[in-house]
């Protein structure tokens, strides 16, 4: 049987009037979107424009390095490596050594980590392992709200609320109980290294806990079930099944927090006391690399003075780059190539 034997299908619908709405609709539906030869020029141009934007990000990093290196040349030639080993900072006699600032940055950041790490891990563990589902979203939102407060507002609060509390209650208590260590001696000003460490801790807790939470979430559920099946209590399950598996990621989160603490400027400048001295006691005022830049950059009159400040900026830049790169790699190793969420 040939096809021709079949009756032709019949369409009873009337042809739409030419020019009517229905006809236009059919025309629009059957006309190819693009008529004629498609030019490749806009496509190629767009592709390269976007590549240029990507390149701009890399160029930006290059620009930062270039600016800092060129700016600090004068100071580098004058002092060399000794710049980082000298504790003399005297604009009048043009003698510059960065040691007190490096010391202040390191001590205040480590102090912040000592306070923030246990708290952040506790919060992350509570949110992922213990807390009822309904509370989970609220809690993570609230801890992330802490990250949205501007640094200068933290500083404001620290000056007028936290420092008086430290001076009246915390420091006398620490001096009585732990004064023999030498870390908590001297007059309790309130303002000083301890205040800087505490406010830094409050500021980095959201970062550490939110990344730790992400790391804990990706620990496979069957790890937890396996440990529970062996008769573990919930805490033993968290310790052996969860925390141990997420070790590298948690360390990465801590290092990211450290990176943030090292570069934090405003809140620290407002409470650390800004004196370039190296004191053993945490009650004594100090100075950090970031706060000396904030305080003295606009007042730097001599070329060497400005150059020395820029060299401090360069050092701060390199330290934070290394710390951040290290942390990213550690977090990546746990979350399996999924990029860590940007920490704002």
């Amino acid at each position: 049987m040939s096809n021709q034997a079949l009756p032709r299908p019949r369409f009873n619908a009337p042809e739409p009037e030419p020019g009517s709405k229905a006809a236009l609709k059919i025309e629009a539906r059957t006309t190819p979107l693009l008529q004629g030869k498609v030019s490749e020029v806009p496509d190629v141009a767009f592709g390269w424009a976007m590549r240029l934007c990507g390149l701009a990000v890399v160029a930006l990093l290059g620009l930062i390095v270039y600016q800092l290196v060129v700016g600090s040349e004068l100071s580098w030639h004058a002092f060399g490596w000794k710049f980082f080993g000298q504790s003399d900072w005297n604009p009048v006699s043009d003698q510059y050594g960065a040691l007190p600032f490096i010391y202040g940055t390191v001590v205040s950041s480590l102090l912040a980590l000592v306070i923030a790490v246990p708290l952040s891990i506790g919060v992350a563990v509570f949110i992922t392992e213990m807390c009822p589902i309904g509370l989970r979203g609220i809690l993570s939102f609230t801890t992330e709200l802490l990250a949205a407060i501007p640094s200068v507002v933290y500083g404001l609060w620290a000056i007028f609320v936290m420092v008086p509390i430290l001076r009246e209650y915390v420091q006398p208590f620490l001096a009585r109980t732990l004064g023999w260590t030498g870390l908590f001696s001297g007059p309790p000003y309130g303002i000083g290294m301890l205040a800087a460490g505490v406010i830094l801790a409050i500021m980095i807790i959201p970062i550490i806990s939110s990344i730790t939470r992400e790391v804990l979430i990706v620990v496979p559920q069957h790890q937890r079930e396996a440990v529970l099946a062996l008769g573990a209590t919930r805490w033993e399950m968290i310790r052996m099944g969860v925390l141990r598996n997420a070790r590298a990621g948690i360390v990465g989160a801590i290092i990211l927090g450290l990176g943030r603490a090292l570069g934090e400027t405003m809140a620290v400048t407002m409470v650390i006391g800004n004196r370039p001295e190296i004191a053993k006691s945490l009650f004594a005022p100090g100075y950090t690399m970031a706060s000396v830049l904030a305080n003295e950059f606009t007042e730097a009159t001599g070329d060497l003075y400005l150059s020395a400040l820029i060299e401090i900026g360069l050092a701060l830049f390199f330290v934070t780059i290394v710390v951040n790169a290290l942390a990213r790699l550690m977090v990546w190793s746990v979350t399996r190539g999924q990029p860590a969420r940007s920490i704002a």
Partner: protein
Amino acid sequence: MPDTNPNSAAVSAQQVNISPISWRRRVTDHVMTGISVLTVLLVLLPLFAIFAYLVYRGIGSINIAFLTQTPKPVGEPGGGMANAIVGSMVILAIASLLGVPLGIGAGIFLSEYGRNRYGDIVRFVSDVLNGVPSIVIGIVAYGLVVMRQKHFSALAGGVALAIMMIPTIARTTEQMLLLVPQAIREAAYGLGVSRWRTTLSITLRTATSGVITGVMLAFARVAGETAPLLFTAFGNQYWNWKTDQPTAALSLQIFTYAISPFDEWHRQAWAGALVLIILIVGAVAAVRIAVRHGTLAGA
């Protein structure tokens, strides 16, 4: 949930000869749970303390004069931060104009053209840029703009904040574009739509709300920044409408007033802090609402 039923533990202890959960282990479990709850309370405490105190001190100090006048000299009561509020907006507008297109462009590159080694480099660099201290960005903007212009300016402040916005926007844009199903792109190609039109009108448009969330995240992050403005925008006690002149910013003004020894200025610092937070939250909320209901709504 761990099985702590003592009966089943006893039965299994008889049968399989393992010890039941001991008293010590059970106490440890409860103690650790308690510690964990305690850490949450300890972390939430400063948050509520900051917000409560901010509202308490701020509300009492905001008035019409604060919102409409420029700062008065020391000793004179009254005055406000009107010029700083406008200055902050100008600086943020410049930063957004420079940073948002470049950031979104870099995000498009990462997601549509950068699934290779070059993309990995850009990805890593933008993550690293994200961690550069803001004060260092300030030094760079000082060298780039202030040194050339020979004076502090709103433009320099805007450049500094734009540099901080770019990596955040690039990475969130990338992640949002990657969420758009490949099939949608292929459908567009199948209709003969060119690649650039597909990327802009199909992929980017589908991901609009996510991309805008990323932009607002970056915006909120830089809106309260002070450190990079110290030696770029510098601050100003008077009205200034020129983008190449020193410009006041809310965050700078809060800093200056907070470390001053005058009660009147402290009061204004609190008011400024409250206004700053309200402006940030308001801007983010306004854009969110516009995305959900308005013309910006995605496909």
